[in-house]
């Protein structure tokens, strides 16, 4: 065996060690806060601020979840101390709104996700495949609307929606969120649709598909990864949105989870364990969705359509 052929082992080990180390830092950086959120949600208030901090919950409990979910309507200024008199934790006044807000967030999110894909897919199909006059102009106009910062639009939007009598409704949130998600989704889908060989469009038209048929039978199935990504993107945008929800909704008719949970931190006294239990509840639905749809987000669906 010649010396040149032997692999120098030390640098290889060193490189993997460095990679491991950097990965660990990255995971800690991203996952650390989430871990802390989760940890404090299953321990009593007294341990949240323990010094020195404990990394592993001393005696894990689901009490925090039970308490805020079953808070019901009895939480008033007078009764809120009843949450856990022993430790002096204070039930947030907004706790009774937690479940209605969860439903609001979920229903608005699902509506935005579905409508977003329906609107964007048809628009993207038209722009990507039909050579109509004013096609470029349409595309640029759609994209330019996204350059304007949201905060600049709040007052006009508020006035507009008030004129339509939509303040405090889910419809107000849905239309507003669609205005945010649709342009991005159109942009993503146009690129995806254009990557599908144009012969497939021709073949489907010849086989007897109308434009809508081509979209339904050929382009949407082939763009499934992009469609699923758009569904997730729209749902998450809606789920996390705070600013518009704060301005456009004023009571539990339409208020979403971020508004209610942020309210937990605005009481006279704040209980971290309750606040964080609500936080965990807020991150569960998106995580579940991501796990459910993950298998659809695969590429290479168009393999074998055309030569090369």
């Amino acid at each position, binding site marked *: 065996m010649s010396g040149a052929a032997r692999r120098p082992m030390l640098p290889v080990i060193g490189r993997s060690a460095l990679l491991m180390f950097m990965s660990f830092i990255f995971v800690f950086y991203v996952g650390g806060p989430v871990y802390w959120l989760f940890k404090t949600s299953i321990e009593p208030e007294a341990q949240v601020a323990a010094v020195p901090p404990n990394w592993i919950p001393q005696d894990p409990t689901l009490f925090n979840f039970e308490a805020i979910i079953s808070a019901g309507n009895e939480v008033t200024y007078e009764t809120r101390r009843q949450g856990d008199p022993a430790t002096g934790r204070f039930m947030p006044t907004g706790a009774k709104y937690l479940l209605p807000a969860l439903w609001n967030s979920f229903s608005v999110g699902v509506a935005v996700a579905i409508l977003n894909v329906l609107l964007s897919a048809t628009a993207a199909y038209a722009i990507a495949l039909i050579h109509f006059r004013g096609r470029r102009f349409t595309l640029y106009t759609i994209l330019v609307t996204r350059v304007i910062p949201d905060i600049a639009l709040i007052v006009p939007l508020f006035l507009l929606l008030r004129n339509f009598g939509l303040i405090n409704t889910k419809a107000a949130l849905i239309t507003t969120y669609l205005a945010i998600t649709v342009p991005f989704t159109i942009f993503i889908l146009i690129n995806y649709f254009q990557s599908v060989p144009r012969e*497939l469009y*021709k073949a489907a*038209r010849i*086989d*007897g598909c*109308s434009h809508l048929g081509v979209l339904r039978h050929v382009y949407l199935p082939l763009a499934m990864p992009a469609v699923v990504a758009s569904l997730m993107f729209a749902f998450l945008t809606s789920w996390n949105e705070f600013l518009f929800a704060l301005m456009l909704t004023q009571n539990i008719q339409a208020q979403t989870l971020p508004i209610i949970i942020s309210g937990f931190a605005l009481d006279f006294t704040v209980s971290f364990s309750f606040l964080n239990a609500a936080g965990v509840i807020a991150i569960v639905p998106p995580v579940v969705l991501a796990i459910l749809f993950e298998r659809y987000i695969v590429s290479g669906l168009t*393999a074998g*359509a*055309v030569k090369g």
Partner: protein
Amino acid sequence: MAKIACRQLTKKYGNVTAIDRLDLEIRDTEFMVLLGPSGCGKTTTLNVIAGLEEVTEGDVYFDDTLMTYVPPHKREVAMVFQSYALYPQKTVFENIAFALRLRKVHDAEVRQLVQGAAEQLEITHLLERRPSELSGGQRQRVALGRAIVRKPSAFLMDEPLSNLDAALRVTMRALIKRLHRTMRTTFVYVTHDQAEAMTMADRIVVMRDGVIQQLGTPHEIYHRPRNLFVASFLGSPQINLVDGRLEAHEGGGSFVRGGWRVPLADARLANQSGREVVLGVRPEDLRVGGSDLEAAAELVSPLGSEQYVNACVDDVELVLRVDKDVTVSTGDRLPLGLDPRRLHVFDKQTGEALSGQPEP
């Protein structure tokens, strides 16, 4: 089954004119080949017939019914593409069945029709596979299956064999020709391959820059090319073209160039003395043995079944097709004979044929 007519068809993309006032009549059950170099407008013409491109001007008729504004999915034509264009997410069976499914054909009938088409194309064993698991030839068979399963009124093919290797192309050529015979449907076939055009067509349209150069049977196109472009586009090796002029003499006209003096058969050329012309001679029409010209062999390319010889007469290089049994080596002096009736004369300025070969 349909007769297809294009009337004054014009298609422009911005400033580029892809088709220029094209008039074309395709007969019912005819195998029509659109032949030309890339960019000549043949594919655009096919797309216009299919309805995939809107026309700038002019009209398309199927059996005297105006189709110009009928969307493609209502024209009942079938099409096969160069790139096969199979739906990658569907199995072979579903690819072939797709058009039937859209027409709400009963499930048992779909099964029967797909099976029938698959048997005809010998792909029954592939029905459950996906396109990505097939070879190029198999994919093209599936694409054909998708088209024949529907009994379309016209069958459009856009260079369907260009992506296949040479041997497969010959088999598929025969297969398509057989399909045409059994289906008795109008076929419109686009290609840049003259061999495909000559072997399959009932009639050929030769196109260039969006304009029809000549329309006729393969025999007419090959033996009586209407202009220089058609003459040089068909034939392999290419037709030999020699510049010169006409000269009249007793009993007819001759082509003259330096030492060349070639008598011409066509009497119409006799009184055009002095006209600048191009003489066209197909390689197979130059006979070794004869007394019209003497050439020096420069290069011999044996093909097995025959041989091509590049030979020089004065400063002109000619290609000859020579029988495989004739022994020719570089430097040989070859006496050449020309059959006056097999010569083509074109005007030098316009490229138009002045005489063609008479009907045999």
